[in-house]
């Protein structure tokens, strides 16, 4: 309930403030969002499984974002930023799919 409200508040804030993305953050923001999305679905799945721990959620959320950003940064420095971003997105996408599948099994028993 409060979690859903938090999401709503964040979206509304973003829509109302409409901040410009600073230039240095531009390549990392999409990856960071996807990584955070992965952490959120992972947390939801853990919650469904009854093993949710808020400390683990916080740590995984932050470390996911940081590691994703770090990989993109490294890729930029090595000259393979685009490919590495794609790789990270693919991996995170697979994880999101498997998490969503587990959640789906919990909710619909199918």
């Amino acid at each position, binding site marked *: *309930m*409060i*979690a*859903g*409200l*938090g*999401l*709503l*508040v*964040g*979206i509304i*804030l*973003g*829509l109302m403030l*409409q*901040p*410009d*993305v600073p230039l240095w953050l*531009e390549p990392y*923001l*999409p990856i*960071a*969002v996807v990584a*955070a*999305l*992965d*952490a*959120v679905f*992972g*947390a939801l*799945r*853990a*919650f*469904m*499984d*009854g*093993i*949710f*721990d*808020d400390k*683990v*959620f*916080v*740590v*995984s*959320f932050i*470390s*996911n974002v940081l590691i994703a950003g770090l990989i993109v940064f490294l890729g930029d420095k090595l000259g393979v930023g685009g490919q590495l971003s794609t790789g990270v997105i693919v991996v995170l996408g697979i*994880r999101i799919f498997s*998490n969503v599948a*587990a*959640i789906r099994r*919990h*909710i619909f*028993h199918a």
Partner: protein
Amino acid sequence: MSTGTDMPDESAPQLTGRARLGERLKRPISRGQITAAVLLAVLGFAGVVQVQSIGAADVYAGQRQEDLIQLLNSLAAASQRTENEIAQLEETRSSLRNDTDSRQAALEEAHREADVLGILAGTLPAVGTGIVVTVQDPSGAVGTDQLLNGLEELRDAGAEAIEINETVRVIAQTSLTDGQNGVIVDGVQLSPPYTIKAIGDPHTLAGALDFTGGFTDAVELPGIGGRVLVDEADNVEIATIRAPAPSEYAEPLQNE
């Protein structure tokens, strides 16, 4: 991974996931809920910002390659056209400016020429270096012959404006006739002594009158008994002017 997604503990669930979710929704306040809310707020904020920045920046993101190439080509052509237009307009501007400049120069030249011609034609008053010649004629024997001679000499010496007795401006059409008590210049009866003012180089003008057998000699011949005084002056003023005489027969030859 430490995302809390480690091996779902399917072996000992006291509740199904759905029931647990439903129960938690009814019981809102807990530390975990608040943490999740904060993190989800951050996620929502970042997601919306990213979506908006993408939406604002990439109008052409979804277009096909051929379309993009065509778009690029048409933009390049448009910029080429615009540059051509700029070049053309700049050329026009510079030619107009040149035109104005040359027109200005021509106008100034014309003004200068009009001044010179005005002085020569006697329509403008003039001032400058020159000489003042006083011809005394006690016996009344100085006439057209001598004066005409003198005026011719002054002309030859480059006099730009000549005036006699401060009454008659001598110009190209000036005529001299012998009268009863002196000469008649352009219909004006003048009486001696004659004062001839001429603007030009003073030395040259004085020299033109002074040579052997010249004006001075002719006037001072024993038979005539006149006397000539030549004063070189820095500031000879000729105030008499002539109305411009319209030419009755001659017309300017049009060159164009």
